[in-house]
């Protein structure tokens, strides 16, 4: 661009000199080989009927687009607001006073002054203005001429350049019949071409977990820039012009709520301080009898929810605010919670591994227990089933129905306090690794055999709970025969049980969400983990030590 600017001055000087020698040389021929702006002027003067002093024409670019964006004949729709665009740039190394006047035929209503005056001070100084006008609905259809006059005064000498622009006024029905949106390709590439490897009419929402995002960045497949919270996808819009003349169009879209038809904010996030709508349109000139596919970017905020939406695509005639063609398509947004999937898969692998090890080493594990211990674990399992599972079969859902989302405050009394009293009491009585696993195994099988709850989620949750408890109880020495005495020991036991249960609760929620496609709010999961998983379990473990010590006396 810099090179073009540096080239422009000597070339222009040459052009002016040649023009001074021979005024018959057409301006467009001389300027067409020059830089961008001159080319633009040339094409404009081709489309607009130009009159004026050729030397003066070389000193300025005077561009008029009616409506905005149309250089070669425009189309106006009855009953619509449009904008005309007037641009002037000076190539004179000095000041010039300019007065521009736009003359519309009778019937057009101009919103604002038709006369504009300004001063251009030096070479490449420019001025532009949008002039709004209205085409009344009763304006007869046909072609009209608009005249733009620029009166330029340089050092007291005045001259005039004129532009005559033809504009055709058409009815809405005429234009609507010309344009149709044939299909919307979702998702597509940047060019609007569909991709068979991706599900039709579906957007895949991005992972919101900071951990996964960080991992993606490290792996080189994620974005680490400021707009990393926004995912970019694309749609293709196939649009057709059945008419006999080219139509300039703006293609845009909005993603709406299917019930309210209101735009969904998560699909128009802020980018670089601006609404993404600023970037989500395409302007095209659609030649007569042609078809074109345009690609549009879709920006999706990380807070977007999955579900069903309405993709509203519209085509407006450039410079107009009237929708010439529109189309609605139902689309889906799929949210893949990769954190939950990852956690569930890990838990499943852990469960399979643990069960595999147990089955392979079952003889060795079982042999390490006396028959009396096995019977005691079995009866404790029965007691836990009788005290927790059977009442909870009914109370769980009744509590849900009565207490709603706060039912966990009640349910936790059974599922955490009573259960952990039993678990910890059994460990106090038989301080050996494997006690918790056997107890939970008996409970799971009883639950399956008697209540039909052979549920994969329960299997994974119980397994993770057993593994976490075994590991942590062994780590603090409780299943290595260390005597739990005093407050420190109780607190330590309560803490490890609470931590293990909080972990298994977290895993359990994720597995429910993945395998059973259930939704849980973050606050609900956190409250459950904190109150049920941690606090209630801590209380249960504490009381379990008391219970275990009392039962020891029975053995003794």
């Amino acid at each position, binding site marked *: 661009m810099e090179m073009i600017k540096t080239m422009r001055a000597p070339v222009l000087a040459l052009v002016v000199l040649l023009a001074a020698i021979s005024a018959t040389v057409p301006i467009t021929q001389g300027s067409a080989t020059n830089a961008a702006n001159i080319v633009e002027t040339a094409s404009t003067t081709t489309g607009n009927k130009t009159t004026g002093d050729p030397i003066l024409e070389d000193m300025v670019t005077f561009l008029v687009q009616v409506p905005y964006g149309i250089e070669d004949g425009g189309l106006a729709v009855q009953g619509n607001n449009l904008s005309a665009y007037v641009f002037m740039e000076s190539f004179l190394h000095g000041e010039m006073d300019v007065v521009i006047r736009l003359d519309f035929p009778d019937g057009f209503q101009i919103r604002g002054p038709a006369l504009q005056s300004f001063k251009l001070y030096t070479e490449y100084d420019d001025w532009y203005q949008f002039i709004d006008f209205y085409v009344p609905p009763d304006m007869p259809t046909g072609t009209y001429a608009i005249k733009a006059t620029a009166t330029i005064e340089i050092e007291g000498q005045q001259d005039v350049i004129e532009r005559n622009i033809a504009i055709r006024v058409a009815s809405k029905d005429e234009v609507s019949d010309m344009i149709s949106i044939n299909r919307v390709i979702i998702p597509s590439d940047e060019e609007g071409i569909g991709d*068979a490897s991706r*599900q039709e009419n*579906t957007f*895949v929402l991005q992972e919101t977990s900071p951990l996964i995002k960080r991992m993606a960045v490290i792996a080189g497949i994620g974005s680490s820039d400021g707009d990393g919270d926004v995912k970019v996808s694309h749609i293709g819009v196939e649009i057709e012009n059945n008419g006999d003349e080219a139509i300039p169009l703006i293609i845009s879209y909005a993603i709406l*709520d299917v*019930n309210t038809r209101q735009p*969904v904010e998560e699909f128009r996030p802020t980018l670089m301080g601006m609404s993404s709508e600023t970037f989500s349109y395409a302007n095209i000139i659609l030649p007569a009898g042609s078809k074109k596919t345009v690609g549009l970017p879709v920006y999706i905020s990380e807070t977007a929810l*999955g*579900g*069903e*939406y309405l993709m509203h695509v519209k085509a407006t005639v450039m410079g107009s605010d009237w929708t010439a063609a529109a189309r609605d398509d139902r689309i889906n*947004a799929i949210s*893949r919670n990769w954190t939950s999937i990852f956690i569930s898969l890990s838990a499943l692998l852990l469960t399979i591994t643990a069960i595999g090890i147990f*089955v392979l080493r079952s003889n060795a594990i*079982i042999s390490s227990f*006396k*028959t*009396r211990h*096995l*019977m*005691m*674990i*079995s*009866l404790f*399992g*029965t007691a836990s*089933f009788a005290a927790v599972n*059977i009442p909870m079969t009914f109370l769980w*859902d009744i509590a*849900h129905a009565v207490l709603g*989302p706060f039912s966990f405050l009640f349910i936790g*009394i059974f599922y955490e*306090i009573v259960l952990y*009293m*039993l678990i910890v009491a059994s460990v106090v*009585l038989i301080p050996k690794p494997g006690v918790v696993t*056997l107890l939970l*195994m*008996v409970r799971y099988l*009883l639950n*399956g*055999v*008697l*209540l*039909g*709850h*052979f*549920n994969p989620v329960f299997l994974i949750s119980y397994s993770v709970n057993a593994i976490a408890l075994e590991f942590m109880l062994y780590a603090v020495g409780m299943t290595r025969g260390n005597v739990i005495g005093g407050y420190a020991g109780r607190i330590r036991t309560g803490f490890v049980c609470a931590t293990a249960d909080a972990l298994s609760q977290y895993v359990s929620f994720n597995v429910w969400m993945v395998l*059973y*496609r*259930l*939704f*849980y*709010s*973050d606050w609900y999961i956190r409250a459950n983990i904190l109150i049920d998983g941690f606090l209630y379990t801590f209380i249960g473990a504490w*009381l379990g030590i008391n*219970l275990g010590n*009392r039962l020891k006396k*029975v*053995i003794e």
Partner: protein
Amino acid sequence: MISARSIAEPTIRDTVIHRLDPRAKIIMLIATSFIIVALDNPQTMLLLFLVVLSGFVPARMPMIKMKTLLVLLVLVMWGTMYSQALFYSQLPRTVIFTIIPPDAPFLGWLTHGGLFVYKEGFYYGAVQALRSATVLSMGLLMCWTTDPRDMLNGLARLKVPYSIAFMVVTAVRFLPIIIAEVATVITVQRLKGFKPTKMGPGMIKTALGVLTPTLANCVRRASVLAVSIESRAFRAHRTRTYLKELQYSRFDMILIVAAVSLTISIVSAKLLFNLYTSEIYYSSELRGIYSLARGYL
């Protein structure tokens, strides 16, 4: 009156369902669990649920069992529908009731902007509850038509360690006794002036009061039981024989092969479809499978 006994005890009859090998029932239950987890299409899920429910007809279950099943299904369905109506996080969603307004002190903050009941969540919950309802129905059909000893025999033949199976048999055997003991202890507590069913912090005290004597009896019983079974050569040998040998019938084999094949097919198809929809793996040769999974699974 629906009681724990009406849930837990099987009704033994001579029907086509009762005669199925327990291993075949367990395998079909596992297959159902896998299939229902893989499915997303509401119509197919409903169909599977109805197929499982239809199994109760040839099993000729007594009315009390059917009432129990109905109550459990209603509770499961309602629980899931209600929770999903609260936590539904898809669009569109229509608020039909506000439980906690966003500006409620503390709770509004705790719930990150209030808690609402969404109309679409009820429908979504009803569809998703079909998973739990199907697994529950299948499990109950299996339990109510199989003697627990046969079930555990089946588990042992499916490589569940015999000692574990025996522990579960013991647990099943002693369950009515322990429930009776718990009931006795609660009665005693009531006679002493406690109110065991009263809600509140007293529940923990009640739980301790109930569990201590119950578990003390368990500890004593475990010692007696251990001596008793050891005297009958429990764990005397690495391997053991069974009084009742299980034998697959032709019908069992057909059911097992059909269930396993169907499970592998459905789970594989859904796995491939999910890889495609997650934009992880796509092959144009698998379009037929994608189409099948999208339309019916």
